[in-house]
């Protein structure tokens, strides 16, 4: 991917450009700079995509370059959950609970076709058509499985998203984002 393409959706930064107080804006920048460069992922993987997630952590691709390497086994210490793999009915409550156990601010990356839409297993009786049905997703990384480079691209998009967040001045907490099922019910 070329450098120019990488910058094309600049609207994320533009979202914040209007009406930010200089002092708190700077404070925000500082905090977000720190947060976006130390995203701790949860070690969570259900299937094939999880192996590519592990490859991304190993020597060749080296997640540590971006500050993602501190994989945590406990959701309470993690900032981002990378849903790597198919989520099935029996797993759904477990994933939901893991997400609920994470402390705010928290982010979700849907890695691979399965986590996005059910992927190759869309027609199965036991597979969720995307994790969006139970938890809100911040970044989608398509692929089956996505290459580690693609995964990094997705994580860098998440970093940009974090950099545009307002921590001070507005509200201190993110509002709970609705999931697909909740929206449909309304």
């Amino acid at each position, binding site marked *: 991917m070329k450098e120019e393409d990488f910058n094309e959706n600049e609207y994320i930064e533009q979202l914040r450009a209007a009406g930010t107080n200089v002092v708190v804006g700077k404070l925000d920048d500082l905090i977000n700079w720190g947060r976006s460069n130390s995203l701790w992922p949860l*070690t*969570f*993987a*259900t*299937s*094939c995509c*999880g*192996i*590519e997630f*592990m*490859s991304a952590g*190993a*020597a*060749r691709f080296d997640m540590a370059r971006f500050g993602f390497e501190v994989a945590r*086994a406990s*959701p309470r210490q993690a900032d981002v959950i990378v849903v790597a*793999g*198919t989520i*099935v*009915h*029996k*797993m*759904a*409550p*477990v994933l*939901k*609970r*893991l997400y609920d156990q994470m402390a705010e601010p928290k982010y979700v990356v849907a890695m691979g076709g399965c986590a996005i839409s059910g992927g*190759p*297993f869309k*027609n*199965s*009786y*036991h*597979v*969720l058509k995307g994790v969006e*049905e*139970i938890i809100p997703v911040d970044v989608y990384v398509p692929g*089956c*499985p996505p*290459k580690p480079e693609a995964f990094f691209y997705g994580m860098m998009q998440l970093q940009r998203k974090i950099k545009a967040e307002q921590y001070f001045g507005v509200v201190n907490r993110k509002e709970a984002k609705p999931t697909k*099922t909740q929206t449909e019910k309304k």
Partner: protein
Amino acid sequence: MGNIKEKIGSFLPEAVFEEGQYITVSVPADKVHALALYLRDDADLRFDYLANLTGMDWGESLGVIYHLNSTTYNHWVIVKTSTTDKENPLLYSVGDVWATALINEREIHDFYGIRFINNPDMRHIFLRNDWKGFPFRKDYDTNPEINPIPLESDEYLDIAPCVKETDNGKIEESLNTIFEKDDYVINIGPQHPATHGVLHFRVALDGEIIKKVDPNCGYIHRGIEKMCESLTYPQTLHLTDRLDYLSAHNNRHALCLCIEDALQVEVPERAKYIRTMMDELMRISSHLLFWSTCCMDLGALTAFFYGFRDREKILDIFEETCGARMTMNYNTIGGVMADIHPNFQKRVKELIAYLPKALKEYHTVFTGNVIAQQRMKGIGYLTKEDAISYSVTGPSGRASGWTCDVRKRTPYGVYDKVDFKEIIRTEGDAFARYMVRMDEIMESVHILEQLVDNIPEGDYAVKMKPIIKLPEGTYFRQVEACRGAFGVLIESKGEKYPYRVKFSSPGLALVNVVDLLSRKNKIADLISIGASLDYVVPDIDR
């Protein structure tokens, strides 16, 4: 072959024989158990290995198919039985004859609702307790509103319902205690870094000592077999890569072989060579990943980086030729998808030159380490008899002294043309399983060495029609995947869709044996045992 037929015929006059790939015999449900004992124990038959147990819905009846093999004579027989009672289907368990049947029967109970008399545990294993309907039956209603996405965790049952036959032949419902009221039960998984995926163990402890392990699967049950029933044969192929993604080529090879067998297609020699080489590359990459994760589980994190570093070399080879690092989708019916990349041979030779040095380093770094040895030696002992009874194949079975390598027993590809050793150890502990895998890497290198310069010229695939119809019948084929014998069963009714596809994975047998291996060991040893068995969870759950 006639001998088997005669013997069964004289033992059980009501047995009905059919023609097929192997001798096939249909028997009434109440005679199955007696026949099973006879087949296993008769000196000329010795069917001691239950290779596959498949549930079936034949429309007007529900039933099961047993694929039996003899480890002594390597002959096969297929036993079928069925019941027409669809409201309350009952068949007899053969769990006391072949222990692997216990978990397979639970699977069939989940999918077809058939209950097995005398199986002590008829709880759900893959599906939730509140699941409505039996998804593999042909009349299953797929309406998602019947089984909506649950948001509450499932309830775990400590008391298992079961059906028993009393001494005077009466059949009654009964209960069987899995965990006592005052057992101290802890949960490991489904989200736990050392279970290698989403597997759930419930472990009863006495202090630090394990009293019992109750595996709970299904957290990645994707219903692949059911999906195959509405896909055309070429479409079913791509799902096999995602079963055990670390044996992607091997699994797909099995399905292709099974279909080619049924169609009686002869694959070009070149394709056979390429397939065999790909299988062995896959095996090396899988065993390297085993080494990385096994060491990581035992606390040696550096090994993880070493193993993944070297595995990347193989993934590069795959990427050049197949276009993907994982889920390669390379084998196809009648050959392979594309010819090998011009760099292929060069890269493989580089790998062959590199790996022996790397392995030496691995052994220096980890194998000789006192902590590693103490955590693996003498832990999780599996006897040869148990390995066969539980159908523990692959490196884990060979570490117990069972010569179960499908590449040797029923050669496919070009395995009959190469010279390689079947690595056998007799200690049966975690360390033996570890060492078998490490030595197998060297054997795979050895196989590659013999093939890399001898790939014959020619076509890499025979042209197939886009719509493939298999002649009516039941077909079964096994290959040696990285974790053991991987079997594919296809039942065809002569249409372009299979009537039933069953993947008999090595993983399910491995999970079944965890309880046996870890009893009386310490809780920390469960990690070594799990690591040394090297199961892949989507392969268990399918």
